[in-house]
């Protein structure tokens, strides 16, 4: 019964909430009515918006030495998680069989281990910093902690699920993923998508003034 619920209705529900929630949220940002800026632009906003979406992946050299920990840990976590999500053997098989109908070459076992270590270590460092750094502690919200814990649990149950033949562990992982997907559109996890319009808006603002942001 639990297996049916987790593999069936709850999975479809979580996918629907995730999909509709993300599209709704992005749509409300991208297609919202906006006031025209009446000042005369010095340069085109479009190219600057496009450029800023990518340029913000690398911090300005003037600040990078002050943000080494969040910078390195941030990259470790995000790159590790991306690799696990899209190139771990079980995920590639799952996506091929259940969602996409096609697959790609998964990463070898050693790469999986490295990715998992990077993702775990990065997330733990970021969370510890959130708890101990006076600035992060002051500005962090309950949502920031829920997001970190939920993501950690999903990753942890994912490792447990690697134990072949343990259906309960596979179901546990899938259940936590479903919770994660349902929580996603209503939380800071949305930055996965909203960072794109966010960077673009700011890039456009600076760009029309002729500033490389």
């Amino acid at each position, binding site marked *: 019964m639990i297996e049916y619920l987790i593999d069936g209705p709850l999975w479809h529900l979580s996918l629907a909430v995730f999909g509709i929630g993300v599209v709704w949220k992005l749509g409300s940002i991208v297609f919202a009515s906006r006031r025209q800026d009446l000042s005369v632009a010095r340069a085109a906003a479009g190219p600057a918006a496009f450029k800023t979406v990518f340029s*913000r992946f690398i911090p300005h050299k003037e*600040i990078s030495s002050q*943000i080494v920990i969040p910078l390195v840990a*941030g990259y470790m976590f995000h790159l590790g998680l991306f690799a696990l999500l899209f190139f771990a053997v079980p995920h590639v098989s799952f996506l091929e069989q259940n969602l996409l109908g096609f697959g790609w070459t998964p990463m070898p076992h050693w790469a999986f281990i490295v990715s998992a270590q990077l993702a775990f270590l990065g997330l733990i460092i970021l969370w510890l910093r959130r708890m101990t750094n006076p*600035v*992060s502690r*002051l500005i962090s919200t309950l949502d920031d902690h829920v997001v970190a814990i939920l993501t950690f649990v999903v990753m942890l149950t994912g490792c447990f699920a690697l134990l072949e033949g343990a259906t309960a562990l596979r179901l546990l992982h899938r259940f936590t993923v479903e919770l994660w997907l349902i929580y996603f559109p209503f939380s800071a996890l949305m*930055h996965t998508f909203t960072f794109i319009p966010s960077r673009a808006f*700011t890039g456009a*603002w600076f760009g029309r003034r002729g500033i490389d942001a």
Partner: protein
Amino acid sequence: MSERLEKGLEVLRSEVDYKVESFFSSCVNCGICAESCLFYTETRDPRYTPIYKTEPLRKLWQKEYTLWGRLAGTLGIGQPMTEADLADWEELVYDGCSMCGRCSMVCPVGVDISGMIFKVKHALAKAGFSPEGLVGAARRALEIGSPMGITLTTVKAVIKHVEEDTGLKMPVDVEGADYLALLSSNEIALYPEYLDSLARIFDHAGVSWTLSTDAFEATNAGLQIGNKAIAGQLVQRVVDGAEKLKVKSVISPECGHAYTALRWEGPNFIGKAYSFRVVHILELLDELRAQGRLRTTGKESERISFHDPCSIVRRGGIQAQPRNLLQPMTENFVEMKDHGSMNWCCGGGGGVSSNERAEELKLTAFNRKKSQIDEINVEKVVTACSNCRMVMEDGIEANEMDIELVGLTEMIARHLADERPT
């Protein structure tokens, strides 16, 4: 709910737009912006973290525009916003933020934090949570015509002195002139050499220009306090003056926020595009230089650097022009370690210098600029904003630094070639 709170929340609601939705949805509270803010780096007080200064707006957004906030509101378990949510942020956004915009340059998810702080300022100003110094400046700007209480009589006296010093007839209310030159209060009261320099340079370059008795003040206390209605009225005064004289362009003086108010925000404040062009004095001087109409002579041998005013460079896009202008006049030009669009603020922008209450914090924040100057061991610093100049003079005095400060327009006037370009 008190009337002030109601007013503040109403303004905050009106400020929630697609950008706010995108920015708060993207912010993961990493705190990286703290390291970009001189009020944080010089005090290490986490309350000065830029994104924390937007907390009233974030709190309202979270309560009224997110699922969890609405759910909590419906169930009656959410804490309502109180006057303290606005009052407690007055000091943070008015004293502890110079609107320099450095935070907006470093946010990894691209949040324009500075833009959102202005939205908070707007709400606080409307709700009556603004420092006395800025409220007074705004009142004087509306009633007298200048935040420092400078009247037309004072301006006329300065004009008379400049005419005596330069031997040049100052053009006043000349209809059909190409350019209408504006002044900041500082330039009238503290640095009249700016107008003197302008007269000499324009005479040298053969520029058709005028001053206006209706619109002489460029500063905008409405922008500083965050009140868009006042800002619009002050911009409209300039627009009316420019249209009355039928000028082709209006020259924004060496004043950072005046440039922002006139060039970038002005049309939006008054709700219509201008019929004239707004040009910053450095842009115009660089254009004249490129056209061969502005020629200088002599190079200064001392080590000289340039302080980039935030509103002109980082938020205004005028970065190459001051360097183009300085290059022919300097032998030992040295850039500060962080310069251009990532330069550090003087600490007195965004109305901080008009806010007596912030005096001590402003001087603490100036330590960042002091470190920048000390690092490069220069004898002279040139800038192009009278407010930066005044704040830095205070800082230099307080720290007993042996540095000469000079305005760029003034420096050019000192180096004007004798022969006029043909």
